[in-house]
């Protein structure tokens, strides 16, 4: 440590001590509580979401906070259990959180969304299940496309680009996978694509050999894979091992950087639709991906991006109002369109529908030589 920097640290310390001693300085901060799956089945997704939030808070605080107030962030684990989630959201509200961040899994969201609604506090969640925004809750907001919005894009891709007429669907039997499958099947049917094989797999499943053999033996043109990242990688490895030479089509959870890192060569050829991806041809995404990697020593998946943008949604709404108003956050977000010019931390133009759903551009991508390559950009559904 040089003399110069030591002096700076001392000065900083003195400044901090001074600030702490000043009356009313507690009001100069804003408290945000994140309630998310940090243990249990959702721990992988929840940790990414938490990291994204931590990065956002560090960025915002470094640039002077929200309306001059520094953010104090607190993370509460839900153990991926609805009862605990409800307790934690209740605690967050009792402790005066400005907005509720999280959770990511739909079950825990379902258990806690009424609490935030009754308290009239905005809750920014990472869930993708279609049903969440169909309950008339005015305080619930997503951070990604709902499955109901993403699946038509994938079904069209299967029909027009892959030209598949018989496919196998492999899904993870949790709220994420089941929700995706249930949203996908009617879209496939509408386009005349037949589901010849419907394979349910378990969350945390380790061995996919039997599933891979089953798909290899089935007479299908393509495989729609809707699993969480780690299971996607295991599935791709098993499928490659068993010589399943069929196009693997999926979402962000099949094409993401994490899956490519884990599955290695077996990920090549996987393709499909990507919503939030650090590989998307958006400089802000790529920059986020690099800084996330540098800070957490791991590649961000879509949940990291979601957490990052969740905090910035609150920041944008507050600055837009020009004051701190809990209920106002929800009112301001509803129906808003936020562009990166208005708030750089939003990264990509995002339209918030009246029911809390989001609309954004998204991408068609393919994994080539261990890299996610974007093939086309899909426009917003209702720009």
């Amino acid at each position, binding site marked *: 440590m040089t003399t110069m920097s030591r002096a700076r640290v001392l000065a900083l310390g003195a400044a901090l001590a001074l600030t702490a001693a000043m009356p009313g300085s507690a009001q100069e901060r804003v408290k945000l509580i994140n309630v998310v799956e940090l243990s249990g089945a959702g721990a992988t997704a929840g940790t990414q979401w938490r990291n994204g939030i931590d990065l956002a808070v560090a960025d915002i605080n470094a640039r002077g906070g929200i309306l001059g107030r520094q953010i104090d962030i607190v993370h509460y684990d839900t153990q991926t259990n609805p009862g605990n989630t409800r307790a934690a959201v*209740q605690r967050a509200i009792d402790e005066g959180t400005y907005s509720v961040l999280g959770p990511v899994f739909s*079950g825990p969201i379902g258990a806690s969304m009424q609490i935030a609604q009754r308290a009239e506090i905005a809750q920014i969640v990472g869930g993708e299940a279609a049903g969440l925004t169909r309950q008339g809750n005015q305080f619930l907001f997503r951070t990604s496309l709902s499955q109901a919005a993403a699946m038509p894009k994938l079904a069209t891709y299967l029909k027009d680009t892959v030209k598949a007429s018989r496919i196998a669907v492999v899904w993870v039997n949790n709220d994420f996978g089941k929700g995706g499958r249930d949203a996908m099947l009617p879209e496939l049917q509408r386009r005349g694509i037949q589901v010849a094989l419907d394979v349910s797999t378990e969350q945390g499943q380790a061995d996919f050999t039997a599933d891979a053999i089953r798909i290899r033996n089935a007479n299908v043109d393509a495989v729609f894979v809707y699993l969480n990242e780690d299971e996607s990688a295991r599935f791709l490895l098993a499928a490659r091992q068993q010589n399943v030479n069929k196009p693997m089509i999926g979402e962000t959870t099949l094409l993401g950087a994490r899956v490519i890192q884990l599955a290695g060569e077996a990920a090549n050829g996987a393709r499909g639709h990507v919503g939030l991806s650090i590989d998307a041809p958006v400089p802000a995404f790529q920059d986020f991906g690099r800084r996330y990697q540098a800070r957490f020593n791991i590649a961000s998946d879509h949940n990291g991006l979601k957490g990052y943008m969740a905090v910035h949604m609150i920041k944008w709404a507050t600055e837009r109002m020009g004051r701190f108003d809990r209920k106002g956050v929800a009112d301001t977000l509803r129906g808003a369109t936020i562009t990166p010019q208005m708030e750089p931390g939003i990264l990509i133009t995002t339209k918030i529908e009246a029911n809390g759903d989001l609309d954004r551009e998204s991408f068609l991508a393919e994994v080539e030589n261990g890299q996610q390559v974007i093939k086309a950009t899909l426009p917003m559904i209702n720009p």
Partner: protein
Amino acid sequence: MSETAASPVPAKASGLAGGLLGRLDGVLLTLVAGAVILWFLPVGMGRYGTYVLTLWLVTAIAVMGLNLTLGIAGLKSLAQGAFMGIGAYITAILGTKLGIDWYTCFALSGLACFALGLVLGFPALRVKAHYLAFVTLAFSTLVWLVLRNEQWLTGGTFGISNIARPTLFGLRTDGALAFHRFVVVVTLILALALWWLVRSPWGRAFLALRENPIRAASLGIDIRAYTLLAFAIGSAYGGFAGALYAPLVEFIDPTPFALSASFMLLLMVVAGGSGYQLGPFLGALLAVALPEWLRFTGGLYLIVFGIVVLLLLIVCPTGILGLLDRGWTALKARFGASDGSRP
């Protein structure tokens, strides 16, 4: 009652046999006084604190049932979480889909679990000891699979939301405090029922059964009927707890009733003090309230929780009340009490 060295639970058994009779009224007093304290405790505590207290009591009901099965009748069940789930789902489905009032749902939940306990108990009688644990383990996972897969009935992974809270004499219990007090009353009634049961001739037969099944048989106790009954009643308490859990959280999905939940409930029985009437309350406090309280330690709170439980079990394998009992006996022996006949 003399202890043989071969008994697997010497400390616990002598504590019960020797101490319980003298302390029965102490248990009763503690239950009633505890209920009065818990009635007023959450005033000014905030909704979060109240919710955790209520969750503790609801969990304690399930643990009480398992304590009867394990601590009193000596059967190891890994299905209490599943019974809780069955109760919660019966209450949620009948309440939200058919509009049946909570009291009927509550009774049906207990009854269904009682009946299932009888059915599941038959293998328990054929294959004793650890094998019941295996059968109930399979049962737990099967129940979880049904809850998750039969979406038309249970809502599958998306669960059931908007579960109504009961009304009492026309008073709604929607508020946190009102529902907490409702649960205090139900818990007290269920705890008193068990207290009476253990004290009754039935209960003594249960105790005899655990201490020495073969001797109990030779004394004319019908092992089969009593074991079955203990398991079924214990399971019914799981159903009762579930019937309260559903309106407490107002939302259920299969996760809280997975196999790990049954493990945790078993942990609560042993950590609290298996066989002690008040043990379930301490065990549930440890598992429900301690992790919440440990949140101040930050992200590592579950590790701290695991270490606390591990150390607790190493220091006192008979649970918290086992330790207190041992301390109490030692004290009495030192100060010349008449029953200081411990080895």
